[in-house]
């Protein structure tokens, strides 16, 4: 079965080609059938591969399709990696991807057929790139997918290209990603010079025994790539702006899959990170800082999608914290559960926006509970899951990361819990302002409120079920003997790292229970506070002051980037442009003018008078003689 692995990315590629090339001829229903059907086919193949991988006695395989680059000693083949990690990611991508495709077919029904087909073509291309990223058996193939998702996110964020702000957001995402990609690319180059290969098998086998300094350099560069792709400080600002795209796109790209590319990459190269403690510390601290920072911004946002976007950034921070403290399984677990509930939340938000006729400001919502029952229930479950209420999925994954952080340093744990509390607060602020209380929108909007069609609610229900029960594959040891099936499943992937890591400190069971349920209890209290406070929310015109205002303006980070980086850069560019115009062009044109001028002067020599020619000839002869006879000495 794993020989057929190439089918998984092939289907979306075919879908992309058909939809992209035939966009003027295909009807909307055909487009959505092709778009969703190809992903469904991939999902089925992925499922079969997953069961094969899961079966005992499976050994990781590399399926080589053809030689991609073959230069001197460097040989890069177009090969796919089939093992536990990639199979799991295949399931997440194609599964969640399929649901989002299904949802999109209803959500985007207002578009004209060619644009509808364009949308699905991009979406399929995106899934293809993501699959390539996850399946690649070396860093170059991974990089191809890496670039592909960057491109697709640019295309999809700027999907409504008639709006200039959206185009700017798309460009911002692209540029930010490029900065990260540069780091990734440099990391690959260094890797090639160090190991002479980018194959996972070669690199990971050679990592042990490589000087730590070099390993630190490579991993830091790779991490720069992860920063860009997974929206970590300082390259996170593109993600909130990326909400310009259609909401399902936000769900697919900016919540469930693309942003997890960085997590996947680090989890994949876990041994290299384990061997360089400096990078691990950097990863952990960056992740933690991002988690807190983004959560604090999310507290005061009023755009339903912006809140979710910052929440995504914050959750990604948790994943990096997990990676940084060596809880690779926990990070991957969180990727998975996060994919479920964040896709759910985004799609729920999409349903709300759809019902509200593209109103995104939660101050104008409220009381949607009775109008959108299915959306309301599923959204609530998603909020509970992300807040970490047992026994929903978010509880287990977040708990695992926090426990690992505590083992590393209690400070990490305290800050992590602080972030979790903020998460609970802003999620329930969002929930309460949207669904509870009285409707605050216009009368017209209220009149048109309606539940979304089945194609939109079915994915919501499926994702809600996954969010609720998805956590049970990773129940901690304390609660259930052998409950952490995911850890057992992923163990071969992280075996090398596990062997390298220092002996594990074990917490006492009492301590673990206390942490687990203590935190859950505090979160519950926070939820109740938020619920009470914001279900009675009234529109005010009062401006926020102090810290609130700073948070509302996202810590002024965009403004800071603008003044510190963009403006000097622009100034420098215009200086260079002037320099180019005046100095460089001056030299170039000056040479031309000099030649013209001197030619014009030299023309007088060509008088046409033979006498003057002879005179010059004689003079030249004299000079030659002088040089010949008297210069030599």
């Amino acid at each position, binding site marked *: 079965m794993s020989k057929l692995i190439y089918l998984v990315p092939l289907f979306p590629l075919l879908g992309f080609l058909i939809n992209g090339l035939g966009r003027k001829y295909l009807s909307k229903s055909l487009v959505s059938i092709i778009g969703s059907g190809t992903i469904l086919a991939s999902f089925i193949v992925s499922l079969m591969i997953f069961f094969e991988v899961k079966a005992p006695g499976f050994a990781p395989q590399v399926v080589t399709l053809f030689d991609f680059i073959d230069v001197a000693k460097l040989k890069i083949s177009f090969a796919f990696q089939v093992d536990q990690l990639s199979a799991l990611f295949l399931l997440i991508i194609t599964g969640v991807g399929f649901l989002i495709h299904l949802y999109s077919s209803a959500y985007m029904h207002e578009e004209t057929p060619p644009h509808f087909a364009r949308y699905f073509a991009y979406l399929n291309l995106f899934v293809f790139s993501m699959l390539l990223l996850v399946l690649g058996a070396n860093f170059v193939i991974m990089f191809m997918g890496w670039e592909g998702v960057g491109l697709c996110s640019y295309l999809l964020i700027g999907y409504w290209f008639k709006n200039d702000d959206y185009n700017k957001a798309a460009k911002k995402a692209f540029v930010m990603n490029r900065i990260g990609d540069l780091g990734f690319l440099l990391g690959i180059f260094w890797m090639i010079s160090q190991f002479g290969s980018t194959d996972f098998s070669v690199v990971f086998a050679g990592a042990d025994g490589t000087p730590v300094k070099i390993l630190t350099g490579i991993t830091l560069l790779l991490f720069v790539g992860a920063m860009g792709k997974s929206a970590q400080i300082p390259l996170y600002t593109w993600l909130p702006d990326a909400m310009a795209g259609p909401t399902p796109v936000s769900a697919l790209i900016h919540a469930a899959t693309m942003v997890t590319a960085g997590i996947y990459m680090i989890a994949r190269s876990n041994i290299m990170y384990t061997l360089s403690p400096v990078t691990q510390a950097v990863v952990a601290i960056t992740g933690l800082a991002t988690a807190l920072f983004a959560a604090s911004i999310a507290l005061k946002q009023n755009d339903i999608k912006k809140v979710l976007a910052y929440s995504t950034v914050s959750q990604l921070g948790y994943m990096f914290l997990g990676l940084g403290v060596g809880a690779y399984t926990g990070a991957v677990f969180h990727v998975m559960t996060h994919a479920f509930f964040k896709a759910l939340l985004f799609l729920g938000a999409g349903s709300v926006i759809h019902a509200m006729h593209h109103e995104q400001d939660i101050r104008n919502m409220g009381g949607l509970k009775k109008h959108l029952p299915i959306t309301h229930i599923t959204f609530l479950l998603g909020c509970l899951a992300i807040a970490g209420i047992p026994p929903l999925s978010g509880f287990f994954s977040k708990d695992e990361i926090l426990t690992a952080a505590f083992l590393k340093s209690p400070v990490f744990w305290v800050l992590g819990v602080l972030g979790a509390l903020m998460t609970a607060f802003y999620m329930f602020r969002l929930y309460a302002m949207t669904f509870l209380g009285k409707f605050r929108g216009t009368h017209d909007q209220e009149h048109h409120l309606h539940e979304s069609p089945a194609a939109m609610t079915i994915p919501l229900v499926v994702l809600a079920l996954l969010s609720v029960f998805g956590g049970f594959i990773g129940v901690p040891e304390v609660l259930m003997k052998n409950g952490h099936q995911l850890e057992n499943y992923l163990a071969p992937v992280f075996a090398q790292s596990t062997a390298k890591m220092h002996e594990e400190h074990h917490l006492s069971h009492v301590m673990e229970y206390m942490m687990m349920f203590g935190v859950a209890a505090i979160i519950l209290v926070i939820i109740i506070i938020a619920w009470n406070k914001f279900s009675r929310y009234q529109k005010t015109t009062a401006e926020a002051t102090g810290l609130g205002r700073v948070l509302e303006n996202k810590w002024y980070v965009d403004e800071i980037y603008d003044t510190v980086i963009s403006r000097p850069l622009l100034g420098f560019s215009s200086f260079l442009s002037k320099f180019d115009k005046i100095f460089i062009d001056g030299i170039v044109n000056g040479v031309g003018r000099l030649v013209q001028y001197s030619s014009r002067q030299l023309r007088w020599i060509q008088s046409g008078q033979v006498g003057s020619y002879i*005179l010059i000839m*004689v003079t030249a002869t004299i000079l030659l*003689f002088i040089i010949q006879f008297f210069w030599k000495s």
Partner: protein
Amino acid sequence: MNITEILFWFLTALAILSALMVVFSRNPVHSVLWLILVFFAISGHYIMLNAQFLAIVNLIVYAGAIMVLFLFVIMLMNMNSDSEPQKNKWLKMAGTVAGGSLLLILVAALKNSEVQYQKVEGAQGTIGLIHNLGKTLFTDYVVPFEISSVLFLSAMVGAVVIGKKD
């Protein structure tokens, strides 16, 4: 100073002075006459070098034929010192200076040449006699000799074609 040297210096002085007169006399007819004198002096040098054949040819061809042709042309155009075009002073000066410095430079360059003390004895040898040259000309150099006749023919045709009134 024997008679050979006296003759050598006399002919040399005559050649150089006449050459100068060729350049500096204003009347073209005088120039031609001075040039004929130069050729006579040069023929005298040939005789001194025992190159009798060349001396005679020089007189016949140059002094006789060519210079007469010149003379004819000049008279045909009715030139005299009044119709003579004059260059401006500075150009003349420049030309003179250029020629003079070429002379200087050549003399300075060849002053210490390695052959400078080799002798040229005029009276010896028979290579310049018509007997020897004729034999060489009609054996080894017979092809160039014949080709030169073609050259003459084409020169004649050319002169006729150019000179023809159209």
